[in-house]
């Protein structure tokens, strides 16, 4: 449960600090309450349903690719109930 997945913010909810992220073609509602500010197109590290940090698109790409190669991505997607 220590892993965090990088994902792209594709929509922001009007209220409640919620956002939709896209990840390997899957969409998921997460909370962005822990970030100072967040915009559509930002990449964030998602952990237990919360964005913990922003990351650069390159970092996100790099991490996702490695996770995919190692077969971790699939396990993680399962965990988030995608």
């Amino acid at each position: 449960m220590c892993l965090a997945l990088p994902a792209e913010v594709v929509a922001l909810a009007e209220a409640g600090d919620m956002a939709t992220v896209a990840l390997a073609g899957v969409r998921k509602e997460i909370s962005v309450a822990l970030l100072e500010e967040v915009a559509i197109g930002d990449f964030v590290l998602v952990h237990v349903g919360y964005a913990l940090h922003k990351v650069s698109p390159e970092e996100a790409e790099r991490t996702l690719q490695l996770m995919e190669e190692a077969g971790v991505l699939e396990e993680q997607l399962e965990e988030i109930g995608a």
Partner: protein
Amino acid sequence: MKYIDEYRRQDLAKGLAGRIRREAQETRRYHIMEFCGGHTHAIFRYGVQDLMPENVKFVHGPGCPVCVLPIGRIDGAMELAHKHDAILCTYGDMMRVPASKRKSLLKAKAEGADIRMVYSTQDALKIARDNQEREVVFFAIGFETTTPPTAVAIKQAQAEGLENFSVYCNHVLTPAAITHVLESPEVRELGTVAIDAFLGPSHVSSVIGSQPYEFFAEEFQRPVVIAGFEPLDVMQATLMAIRQLNEGRHEVENEYHRVVTRKGNTKAQALVAEVFELRRSFEWRGLGEVPYSALKLKEPFAAFDAERKFTLENRSVRDVKSCECPAILRGAKKPTDCKLFGKACTPDNPMGSCMVSSEGACAAYWTYRRFVEPATANAREEAVA
């Protein structure tokens, strides 16, 4: 494209391994504790240990949140579901951890307790909103990465007046645990556990920053290098630790500056400080009572504190006899030192917490077959095939 990248990475890994070999001095010892279960997992998954020279060893630390929770606290969670008839919401990792009499939350659920797996504290809030006539308790576990999400949920519950929601708080603190490991007699006097440097956790540090490690790098004169989760990160950070040791330095360095800053996520820290305060002491599996190592809810949030709302029996329960998890969590033993390893105890039938979580040392040893000796690459491949 993919292959080129893979090749480049393998090349980089080889290059880094070569550097580590060249720079690690034969006459010295480099025992590096990776605190975090995420690193333990990466080290095993990618076979990083096998790329290291003889005198560079990883010592697995207590940074697996599922592994360090004492049995009494899991019993407490079951009591909430059974005796107080609450809906217990828990992260999936906790479901299979054996508690007293080898009962787990999964078994309790099978026996009719209302235990629900959630991915996020937001899911737990939703369950509370949808079941206003029932008590809903969130079984909060984890280090500094899961604590802010719990704080957010508590504040939200307060704002919404969600009176049937409460939190059974078991959040623990990384710096306190590292300090405790360094102060243990096994490290200080007996010398049975050798720790020359630390790899600091990635995501925990993205929240708390690198600053909290400065005190004990100085006080205990051990280098701390914060490392990302990728195998290359772990190797790069190991090289940085080796260099510090060679040069007689003991500083906090940050290999993971892509994400970790000195100050960390200040918004998350402020939320945690608003909702939680330190417990004077908290029991850890393997480490025993550790002073100021865990959090509880502050007075203004007492209404959302399951431990105040329900009276729970406070018990200290012994681990399964001959399960070596406690010693493994202190770095004093290896999973293969346990008589039950791979025999009575496997991931399908775990006897101890270290075999349940994929971040636990026993599960990592078992899954990636790193226990097969001799660990030469060829022999290992044959053994695995």
